[in-house]
């Protein structure tokens, strides 16, 4: 059984916070509010007070716990390794348990639990997307024509495909003899909204002669429900993924979405022993490609005359795991790319699951801090490694009136691979 830790189980970690205040330097939400309840130290103090029954679980507590992107930046830099993101997630579950799920969390739960629903929705959406959305000038995105609940009216969304990634491809794609096999955890955004990223990944793996297994019964990584405090849904999804990835050889499991990587890695792994074993095998696709020597191979190709200037945005969910070099190494190696470092590459884009839903205005402010760096870099494309970040970045760029397009590193790599 998949079982979450609750606030009580995390008491030791909560006590581990020494109140040094270092998280003030790293928390994107604190940078906007500049108030203690917004920073990791404050949230931990509040969670601690709830445990000790010094504070009630009231509206105020709910509001404070909602002000977290679960980006993990504080955890990454905390000298005492206090997992504030886990603590906030547990607090949100506690809230849901005692007060019931929010309507939004309920909808999220229904959607992520039933892939069929999402598919039908999207199939329809593909056809009617012209009707529902309007094209945003100078961007590869769409904007809602009509107000829809939980989607901010000024958010730019990607164009929606008619066929999902997993429907486009067989379950097993053989590579070369004696070459490794990987299992691919696609995640929802890639499967339903950005299937071309998966196509790009398959092309890269093929180039390296790596076999790919795409378990058909896999589900959502659960991160949306983690951020929404819906522990039960997360546990259900975990059971499905446990079954889907328990079969066959214990291959490396790759993701092409930074958030799925954390969801299937750290969060999934915390749910039990079997889950920890599977979660421990999860790797980001770019890391695997780099380790398999792709950057070296690409660097040997003759550089193209016309190269596109590309900057890179670090998704929090990779940066906080120390994955910053591999994507850059790949970009630098590409014959058709001139990689430029941009200021604030490691700043959070401000998406953060439910955060951007409940705090769209602050979420925008957090994201907008990226605009000057993007502009100054002189890049034509901003590459990243997370579909969620891609959506948010395109939004930021459009809002700032900038010309850049957002792509996944995988798309650029696939484009530059020799046929």
């Amino acid at each position, binding site marked *: 059984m998949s079982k979450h830790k609750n606030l009580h189980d995390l008491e030791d970690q909560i006590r*581990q916070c*020494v*109140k*040094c*205040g*270092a*998280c*003030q*330097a790293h928390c994107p939400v604190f940078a906007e509010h*500049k*108030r*203690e*309840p917004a920073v990791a130290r*404050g949230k931990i*103090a*509040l969670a601690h*007070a709830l445990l000790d029954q*010094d*504070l009630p679980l009231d509206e*105020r*507590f709910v509001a*404070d716990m909602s002000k977290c992107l679960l980006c993990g930046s504080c955890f990454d830099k905390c*000298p*005492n*390794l206090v997992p504030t993101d886990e603590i906030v997630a547990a607090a949100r579950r506690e809230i849901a348990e005692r007060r019931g799920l929010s309507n939004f969390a309920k909808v999220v739960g229904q959607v992520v639990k039933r892939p069929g629903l999402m598919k039908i929705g999207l199939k329809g959406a593909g056809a009617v997307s012209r009707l529902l959305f309007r094209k945003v000038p100078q961007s590869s995105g769409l904007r809602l024509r009509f107000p829809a609940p939980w989607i901010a009216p000024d958010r730019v969304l990607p164009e929606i495909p008619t066929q999902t990634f997993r429907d486009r491809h067989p379950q097993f794609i053989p590579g070369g003899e004696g070459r490794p096999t990987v299992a691919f955890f696609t995640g929802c955004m890639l499967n339903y909204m950005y299937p071309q990223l998966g196509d790009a990944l398959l092309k890269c793996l093929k180039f390296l002669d790596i076999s790919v297994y795409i378990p058909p019964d896999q589900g959502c990584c659960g991160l949306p429900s983690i951020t929404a405090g819906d522990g039960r849904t997360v546990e259900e999804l975990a059971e499905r993924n446990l079954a889907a990835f328990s079969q066959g050889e214990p291959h490396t499991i790759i993701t092409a979405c930074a958030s799925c990587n954390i969801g299937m890695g750290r969060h999934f792994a915390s749910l039990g022993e079997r889950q920890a074993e599977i979660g421990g095998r999860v790797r980001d696709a770019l890391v695997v490609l780099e380790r398999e020597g792709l950057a070296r191979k690409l660097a040997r190709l003759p550089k193209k005359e016309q190269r596109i200037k590309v900057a890179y945005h670090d998704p929090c969910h990779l940066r906080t795991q120390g994955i910053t070099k591999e994507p850059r190494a790949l970009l630098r190696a590409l014959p058709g790319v001139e990689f430029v470092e941009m200021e604030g590459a490691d700043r959070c884009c401000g998406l953060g699951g439910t955060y951007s839903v409940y705090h769209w205005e602050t979420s925008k402010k957090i994201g907008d801090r990226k605009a000057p760096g993007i502009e100054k870099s002189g890049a034509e494309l901003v590459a990243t490694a997370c579909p969620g970040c891609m959506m948010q970045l395109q939004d930021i760029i459009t809002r700032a009136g900038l010309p850049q397009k957002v792509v996944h590193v995988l798309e650029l790599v696939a484009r530059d691979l020799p046929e």
Partner: protein
Amino acid sequence: MLEPRIFKILQEIVGSENVTAEDADRLCYSYDATQQKFLPDAVVFPADAEQIALVLKMANAEKIPVFPRGAGSGFSGGSLPVTGGIVLVTTRLDRILRIDTENLVAEVQPGVVTEQFQQAVEKLGLFYPPDPASLKFSTLGGNVAECAGGPRCVKYGVTKDYILGLQVVTPQGDIIKTGGETMKGVVGYDLTKLMCGSEGTLGIITRITIKLLPLPEAKKTMLVIFDSIDGAAQGVSAIIGGKIIPTTLEFMDAATLECVRQATGLQLPAAAKAVLIIEVDGDKELIERQAQQILQIVAPLGVVETRVAQTAAESEEIWKVRRSVSASLRKVNPDKFNEDICVPRSRVPDMIREVEAIATRHAIPIVNFGHAGDGNIHVNVMIDRKVPGQLEKAEKAIEEVFAAALKLGGTMSGEHGVGNTKSPYLPMELDPAAVTYMKAIKRALDPNHILNPGKIFLD
């Protein structure tokens, strides 16, 4: 509890969204890095000096204590509302007002975060040297109030050496200007220096005029491993005796190295008993020469190994070792009492020996590291609060550590200040007449004792 009437006045002064008495907020402003807890009655976030002046005037009239607070990263409880009252947070005063590249002067508000200021001036080829380890989150106001220092202070001095002038709201609510923008100035008492290190007890700093330096062209970092703490200490004296003042001279003792080794898997030779991290900065050619000289000077002192960073990345690797210390100490014991005594440079080995004796006597681990170049040693008494009797042992050990430092001609605190954590020990260091003199200043400026009471002095 604050009377509703008072709360209303505060709302009128700062606006209702900038004052709170909600329990969640009171809790979040009840602590600092000392992990003590004192609940305030209200928290205010003023926008400027005028609002602060009004708050203090009202507080005087009503005799309500006010506690200035920056980032709450203090290590001596300076910002804590020990008597209840109002916590006054400076985070909204967060603007760099100007950077004058011609006169090498800058003017800032107190809530600016130290590192953000440093980055802003460095972009213009200028340099603000004070570098407390908390620089990524501490405020410049807090730095001035505590006279913060850091590794670079060996060569460049501490915060007060860079403060030319201040705007201060006095405890009675007047707005005054101290010092100015000139490099010299001797008209009247030096109130600027009086405010530096006054721990928020003599006034609230609302504007800071800062002296800047040209940014050094380059720097070079070295890690030197010694087979004894004496070798490392002699190394420090020999380098400075050799007329080289490095930017930093950080040391770690054997106990510290063991922690780092365990926590990070850092590869160190078995004979390593102490490490110096030495950095020189300045002209490119000069620092190459200085680095060579330093290595020659320390060579006969039991050097086991040296690592000289050739690139910025290698230099970063060396500093990572130093920065990992704090977290790796947890391997020893969960709770840490971090004291920052300071002794004359040449007495560092004596001090380390004293500390080792104290640790053995009380049978609790004590780990030492810090700024060898200026004799500022971070003495970390490591205990587990949950084990009965350990807290008492730690308190006893700390008192003995202070006594040892004073005996060697040193001080109880090089950087962190007295606050409420060290006030019981104050009479150990200061003679009664000096304390009386200080208290007379405090009483004259703050007759109602409303500004940060309960700090520095016991009563």
